[in-house]
């Protein structure tokens, strides 16, 4: 992306050419089902407008943005004015937003070009992009010597696949418990979940409001820094958006990690972790140490309670947020004799299995007589988990952990046991509960040839330190493997 930016600036190619090349790539890889909606005409129009802006700017007239002319994909959870927005749910059939989400509006202002809307787990609930009304997305990677289709992770699986398969220079994702970082790890790309409040949630279809954050998914750390800069910023329309300046994230990449204190949470070393993953994590420590950082063991004692806490808090908030889909104002309506019947028929038909399950769990833990035992208890655990991080950050500047407990698995696996699927987010959920920024950096390949990511977690609003450490990790890892789909195409 940064390369394309420089190429455009030098006049090596135009945004029209760049955009056309990506539309061609996108059409050639439709088998991955990464997109719910493609918007090629809109993309070409935006590219033309960008080229015009650049031309008049070169004459000293117009203004070019930080992402001028760069074609990107948007997770289909961001409302885009006049462009179908589905959240990959049947219940939003035909929904054409009459407004633009703040994050996408910021991106268009920066000059980016939209290629289309990417597939996700319905309402961002899932870790494999298999819970989509529009069918599963396929990971462009394959195990070596095995052509079985794999999941891209989730919920931002369409975005991850699109970036990994070179269909887009970058894509937006949203992360509630790991939905940016885990698919980034599965697809061998960089995924950034900023601090809660860094990006406005206005116009993003809500899942769990106290956890949801938008972030960029890109091929390099520099691209992630650049794209986050274009997405972030205070927005009076989101009362939880942070009223503080957006730093120059890209500038942070230039600083060395010499003397940086990197914490290794011992509780993240879990039973059943593969020797490969442990070796990669150790390698990550060695890399940062070699770059001048100091490695310090830390303890986050309540880590093991993060997942069960999350699976009370997130469904509770979801059950409340998804009450709005009632067949009256937008999307699907299934008629019934009474108002109540119409609601029940619409929601019964409109929601998929996982969404239904989570709404029911959420309704149950919030229902009379159970609120204290579940929801209040979970909110107390959240205080303890948050406190663990705060105490760790008294001693260290950043934490290094694996991103996900496994590499990409086959489509169909883990689908009959919800809890097995939930375990995908074991390393990403704790930082989400504490609102902290996290990034997944591709660090190596497993023995069977699949990408594995390492995660860095930083203090609230200290994405700069996170990016700085991520850049050092990226440099040392020198990850240049390509997905099967790409290497095949080039042969």
């Amino acid at each position, binding site marked *: 992306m940064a390369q394309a930016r420089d190429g455009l600036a030098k006049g090596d190619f135009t945004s029209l050419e760049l955009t056309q090349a990506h539309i061609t790539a996108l059409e050639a890889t439709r088998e991955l089902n990464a997109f719910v909606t493609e918007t090629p005409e809109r993309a070409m129009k935006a590219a033309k407008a960008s080229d015009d802006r650049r031309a008049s700017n070169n004459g000293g007239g117009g203004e070019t943005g930080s992402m001028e002319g760069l074609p990107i994909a948007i997770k289909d959870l961001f409302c885009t004015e006049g462009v179908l927005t589905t959240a990959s749910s049947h219940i939003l059939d035909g929904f054409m937003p009459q407004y633009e989400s703040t994050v996408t509006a910021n991106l268009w202002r920066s000059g980016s070009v939209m290629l289309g809307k990417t597939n996700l787990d319905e309402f961002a609930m899932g870790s494999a992009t298999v819970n989509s009304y529009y069918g599963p997305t396929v990971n462009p990677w394959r195990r070596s010597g095995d052509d079985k289709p794999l999941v891209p992770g989730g919920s931002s699986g369409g975005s991850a696949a699109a970036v990994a398969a070179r269909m887009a220079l970058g894509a937006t994702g949203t992360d509630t418990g790991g939905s940016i970082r885990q698919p980034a790890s599965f697809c061998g790309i960089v995924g950034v979940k900023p601090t809660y409040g860094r990006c406005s949630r206005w116009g993003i279809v809500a899942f769990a409001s106290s956890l949801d954050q938008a972030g960029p998914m890109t091929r390099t750390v520099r691209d992630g820094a650049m794209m986050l800069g274009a997405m972030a910023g205070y927005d009076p329309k989101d009362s939880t958006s942070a009223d503080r300046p957006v730093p120059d994230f890209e500038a942070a990449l230039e600083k060395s990690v010499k003397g940086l204190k990197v914490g290794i949470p011992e509780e993240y070393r879990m039973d059943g972790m593969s020797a490969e993953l442990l070796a990669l994590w150790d390698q990550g420590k060695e890399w940062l140490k070699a770059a001048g950082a100091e490695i310090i063991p830390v303890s986050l004692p309540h880590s093991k309670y993060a997942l*069960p806490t999350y699976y009370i808090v997130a469904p509770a908030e979801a059950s409340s947020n998804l009450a709005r889909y009632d067949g009256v104002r937008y999307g699907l309506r299934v008629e019934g004799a009474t108002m109540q019947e119409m609601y029940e028929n619409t929601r019964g038909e409109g*929601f998929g299995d996982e969404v239904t399950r989570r709404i029911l769990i959420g309704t149950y833990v919030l229902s009379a007589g159970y609120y204290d035992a579940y929801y209040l208890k*979970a909110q107390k655990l959240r205080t303890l988990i948050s406190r663990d991080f705060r105490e760790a950050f008294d001693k260290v500047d950043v934490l290094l952990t694996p991103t996900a407990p496994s590499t990409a698995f086959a489509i169909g696996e883990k689908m009959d046991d919800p809890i097995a699927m939930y375990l995908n987010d074991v390393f990403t959920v704790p930082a989400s509960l504490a609102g902290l920024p996290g990034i997944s950096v591709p660090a190596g390949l497993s023995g069977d040839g699949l990408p594995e990511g390492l995660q860095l977690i930083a203090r*609230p609003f200290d994405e700069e330190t996170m990016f700085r450490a991520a850049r050092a990790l990226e440099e040392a890892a020198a990850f240049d493997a390509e997905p099967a789909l790409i290497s095949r195409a080039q042969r």
Partner: protein
Amino acid sequence: MALDKATVARIAALARIRIPEEELEGLAAEMEKIIGWVKQLDEVNTDDVPPMASVVDVDLPWRDDKVTDGDCRDKVLANAPEKAEGFFAVPKVLE
């Protein structure tokens, strides 16, 4: 309390989701398993722990109490599955 079929049916009615009778049993078993799993939080003593109220240390902002939006009826109605004379249309509520 065991999460039985009747409980799931009651919760589903509260959540306004129609669930076919034959699916209740399976859902009850799944929910029972999930609820049993989250119950491990009871191991932790939280008597003196306050519940988290805000994720990051940010005070909610105040703004002047004035209208900032509006006059966009057609936009609001644009996606309605059924509308009539500038209103959302719903099944009859009163007899």
